[in-house]
């Protein structure tokens, strides 16, 4: 009985082994997919770069000539420099504010009051569910009721950006706290008579530094490229995306307009690239993570 089974399996296996043709088709399909994706992802980056150094580019496949004038002109432009300054300031304050409010809350939810955790985790889902334009419009209306003088101001924008960026910091910090075993460290420090502030500064922060840095970089990046909230909440604040939006909408076809936009887009792009490279570096090469929210569900189930 056993022998016949084995032989019959062997035979059918022989028959069903994928033929050369099928193998070849699969290989070819893979090659086509990878090539198409590579072109799709790199071509727009290439065109933006070429536009930033092109003299004139309206008729031929490649620009008529190359120049660095646009780069020089763009960086001599007060409006552009001002926009970059505002954007950097906004992103930095957003990241710092997030660190200040998130780290103590995450720490306390681990060592003292576990009821804090579900509240934070539910709140962290909001910026993922609600489009930024909805959050921005709601914030505008709400501030109109409780604090009209804040409308259109930089501080209100900081509050909005800190709120949409905080989940990234929370997940990074909470993960780092779990990895460092912060509960036991904190217990040990408490047994030695350290105060909560001392524990936070001398024990917790040094142990979760990679998580804080990663989270802060992600919060910074979120604020850096954000457009909807700036446009809706803070009319008077002039950031890089606002500058770019004006440039793209006022495009009339005269030369120079697109080239300057290309330079700004390149710089923006380089900043975000450096940020994401830094995130990978501080995460020790871990580029991928499971679908957002998975960790909290897993934890909930295990408990």
């Amino acid at each position, binding site marked *: 009985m056993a022998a016949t089974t084995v032989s019959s*399996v062997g035979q*059918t*296996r022989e028959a069903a082994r*994928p033929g050369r043709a099928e193998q070849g088709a699969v290989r070819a399909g*893979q090659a086509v*997919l990878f090539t198409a994706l590579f072109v799709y*992802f790199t071509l*727009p980056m290439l065109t933006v770069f*070429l536009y930033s150094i092109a003299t004139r580019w309206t*008729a031929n*496949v490649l620009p008529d000539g190359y120049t660095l004038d646009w780069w020089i002109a763009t960086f001599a432009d007060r409006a552009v420099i001002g926009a970059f300054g505002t954007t950097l300031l906004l992103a930095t304050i957003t990241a710092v504010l997030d660190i*200040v*409010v998130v780290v*103590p*809350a995450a720490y*306390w939810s681990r060592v*003292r*009051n576990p009821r804090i955790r579900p509240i*934070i985790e539910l*709140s962290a889902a*909001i*910026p993922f*569910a*609600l*489009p*930024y334009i*909805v*959050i921005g*419009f709601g*914030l505008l*209306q*709400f501030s109109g009721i409780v604090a009209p003088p804040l409308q259109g101001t930089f501080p209100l924008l900081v509050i*909005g950006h*800190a*709120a949409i960026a*905080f989940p990234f910091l929370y997940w990074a910090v909470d993960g780092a706290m779990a990895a460092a075993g912060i509960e036991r460290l904190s217990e040990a420090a408490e047994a030695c008579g350290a105060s*909560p502030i001392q524990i936070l500064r001398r024990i917790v922060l040094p142990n979760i530094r990679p998580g804080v840095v990663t989270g802060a970089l992600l919060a910074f*990046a979120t604020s850096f*490229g954000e*457009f*909807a909230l700036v446009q809706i909440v803070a009319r008077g604040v002039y950031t890089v*995306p606002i500058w*770019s*939006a004006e440039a*793209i*909408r006022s495009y009339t076809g005269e030369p120079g307009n*697109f080239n300057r*936009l290309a330079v700004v*887009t390149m710089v*923006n*792009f380089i900043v975000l690239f450096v940020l*994401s490279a830094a995130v*990978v570096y501080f995460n020790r090469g871990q*580029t991928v993570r*499971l*679908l957002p*929210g998975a960790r909290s*569900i*897993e934890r909930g*189930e295990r408990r």
Partner: protein
Amino acid sequence: MTRSGIADRARRWLDAWLPALPLLALVTCALISPGVVLLAQTFVDANGFTLDLWGRVLGQPVNQVAVVTSLALGVCCATISLLVGGPAAWLISRLLAGRRAFWLGLLNVAANFGGIGLAFAYLATLGNVGMLTLVLQGLGLPFEPPRSSSFLALLMAYEYTNIPLFVLLTIPAMGVVRDDWWEAAQTASATRWQFWRRVGLPILAPFLLAGWLLIFTWSIGIYGIAYGLAGKSGGAAVQLITLQIGTALQSDIVLGPARAAILAVVLMAIASASLLAYRHLLRRALRWF
């Protein structure tokens, strides 16, 4: 004695919650209250409670078109991301380490390239004098690029960040299907198609659908790219909920804020429902971890 009892209680409450209060205040002010205010505004006009606003706004054809178009765009974006990103995620998860790192890096960069910058990159590539347009016309093809404010143009631009996001989100799940299962299936004389139909896809389905829902949710909420590509063309441009909210805030004097609020609540409802379904699916999917 009661007073000290109250003080004692207050102290204990503060001890339990104080370090979390700044974050909770931030979330309440900037995420929860705005949503509540928007919802309330859709039911209140100068005379008090009313359902009239909903009827008037949803009765306007422009808003109906916007809702339908946004949903269609979200479904198309998510479906294409699934069909292209799913196989890509599987293949990338099976590459050698060096090549995999290259692709993850490229996808990370593309996923971060959004907003107005991407709208410009699209114009530079497929606009009237975009590079690809010039290449195709240079080859003598009668190529007319799609209008930059059209559905198709938005779809192509949105996919630039959506496909990488889909791949990055689903790659970790690809490890669930083990290589020796395919060998086992071959031993049992299964074809590649049978293996995927009976083993691979049923296991990966919850993860892939969860990714689909996330891309759908994010796509209907995108504003920056749409504003850059279609913002100025007025009536000729594709109508989306997000664009209509922006327009209503800027120029609609009669129904302005009320119209924007109702459209925002519609968007909120679609996104919340989608995210609830996502969490449900994910919970089922995580059995495999």
